[in-house]
């Protein structure tokens, strides 16, 4: 046995049949970090979830209530973070903004996995479906996600559902490719060959024997999708192509704050701070999940 086979990074042990260098390297991009960081990320995310859940009780103003007499006020006893250009309470609006971000993030993650998983299983198992489906996915992946989302929003009325759909469509091909590559390598395993020889029905084979190997990477991928969906929603709202401006989302708050940025930067920075903290903690938790679910990866990066 020579040095090469001892080095786990060179045996291709984690079975990524395609894109040898790139996809494997990409997946190990975010790796080394102390446990304390994971803990802090979990606490920050828990706080943001609590803010979203308890927004009606934590807020001390109606987030939609206009008060023309109190436009662009600074921090005060009544308005903790001041008011925006319409005299609405910034603090209360930011609390409610957490709801939109989390709904979009979790919703898009669950839906794109729910749609991508069966498609990936089919593509990995049936040659004929694979050829057609993957060409469609290649085409979809060639369209930059943000432009696709912008086009979908511009063609439909902008509400929460269309925004989620718009963010979800570019994410699905990634899920399909991930599931497909796992299925392709799982099919080579002896236990799958045994199941095939025993005449296991196709559906049962896919669900009982092929699907389990996709679960761990999908959990990891799901957290990354969640983070990127929250980011995309904020970008769409910021550009004015997101959910209706009457809904207080972090992106909308920042979008409305743009004109007054030089007078009152806090209109952008508070929402930006929470948005960044939210995305950062979800990304870090995704990294931890990946390390926990794929011990090989962790050892390699240690």
């Amino acid at each position, binding site marked *: 046995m020579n040095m090469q086979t001892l080095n786990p990074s060179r045996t291709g042990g984690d079975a990524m049949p395609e894109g040898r*260098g790139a996809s494997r390297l990409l997946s190990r991009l975010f790796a080394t*970090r102390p446990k304390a960081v994971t803990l802090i990320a979990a606490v920050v995310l828990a706080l943001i979830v609590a803010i979203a859940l308890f927004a009606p009780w934590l807020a001390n103003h109606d987030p939609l209530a206009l008060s023309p007499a109190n436009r662009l006020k600074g921090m005060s006893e009544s308005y903790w973070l001041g008011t925006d250009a319409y005299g609405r309470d910034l603090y209360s609006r930011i609390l409610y903004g957490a709801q939109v971000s989390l709904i979009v993030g979790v919703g898009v993650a669950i839906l794109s996995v729910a749609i991508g998983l069966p498609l990936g299983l089919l593509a990995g198992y049936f040659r004929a479906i694979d050829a057609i489906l993957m060409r469609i996915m290649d*085409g979809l992946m060639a369209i*930059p996600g943000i432009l696709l989302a912008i*086009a979908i929003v*511009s063609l439909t009325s902008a509400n929460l559902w269309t925004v989620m759909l718009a963010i979800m469509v570019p994410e699905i091909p990634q899920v399909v490719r991930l599931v497909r590559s796992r299925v392709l390598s799982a099919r080579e395993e002896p236990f799958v060959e045994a199941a095939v020889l025993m005449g296991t029905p196709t559906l049962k084979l896919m669900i009982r024997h092929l699907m389990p190997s996709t679960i761990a990477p999908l959990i990891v991928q799901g957290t990354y999708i969640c983070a990127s969906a929250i980011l995309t929603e904020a970008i769409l709202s910021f550009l*004015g192509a997101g959910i209706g401006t009457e809904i207080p989302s972090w992106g909308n708050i920042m979008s409305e704050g743009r004109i007054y940025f030089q007078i009152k930067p806090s209109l952008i920075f508070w929402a930006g701070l929470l948005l960044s903290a939210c995305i950062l903690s979800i990304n870090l938790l995704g990294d931890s999940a990946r390390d926990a679910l794929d011990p090989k990866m962790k050892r390699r990066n240690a």
Partner: protein
Amino acid sequence: MLSYFVRRVIAAIPVMLVVALFVFLLLRLSPGDPAAIIAGDMATPEQLARIRAALGLDEPLYIQFFVWLGELLRGDFGTSLISQTPVLTMIHQRLEPTLSLALVSILFTVLISVPLGVIAAWRHGSFIDNFVMSASVVGFSVPVFVIGYLLIQLFAIELRWFPVQGFRSLFDGVGPFVSRIVLPALTLSSIYIALISRMTRASMLEVLDEDYIRTARAKGLGERAVLFRHALRNAAVPILTVIGTGFALMVSGVVVTESVFNIPGLGRLIVDAVLARDYPVIQGLILLTSGLYVVINLLIDLSYAATDPRIRY
């Protein structure tokens, strides 16, 4: 060799066809009358009828698709609803600011992230390694527009080093161009720097274990030569790949950065088009950027085959 090139180029055609089909179906299958969407809210019934005829909406769907595809291939990407100018002309007019921004950003990215990644890999586990790794996680998670506004607040409003917003062409003088491009280019490159410095580090770590690196050191080469001439050159392939896959990031970054810094480029064009519901412009920009994505990735693939004798299919 040649046959591989030809096959790869041919393989890119179905991808473009799927893109075109998708963009086509997006308009046709969206709720509501495509003619009404194309015509905008203010259209008269005569205008609607004219657009309906021009789009061939009474023909079967597949004939509509091929007619439209033929127009695209002849370079006819339609006409803006708002300005009544051909979409390609509008894109051409907005190209320069976006190209300047993208190229300066790529320059910043390479100058900053490659040395950072190389040093981080070289001093694996050290303070600087940990710093680069943590900074890039943060850079990856903070939205581009938040970084943009932070830079404006610090360098334009507090320190007054640069103007807050705007764009000047390079042909109007180097000084005004540079002073206005630095902040947007830093903003746009932030996410790329995060990505590429990590990629360089990971790729270098992989290469630094190789036998030929030990040989290079053993024959007495200096560390600098080992790192940059032997290691980095072999680590470059995955780094190049990330530049290709990172193109989507670049597109969303351009759209956002141009909005934050008020740069009249392609990113502003699509945002204005969305606000005005100017679908032909959106459609043209999607087709062109997707085409560019396919071409960039094709070139990267081909450059591997040209430079790395191990890659042969």
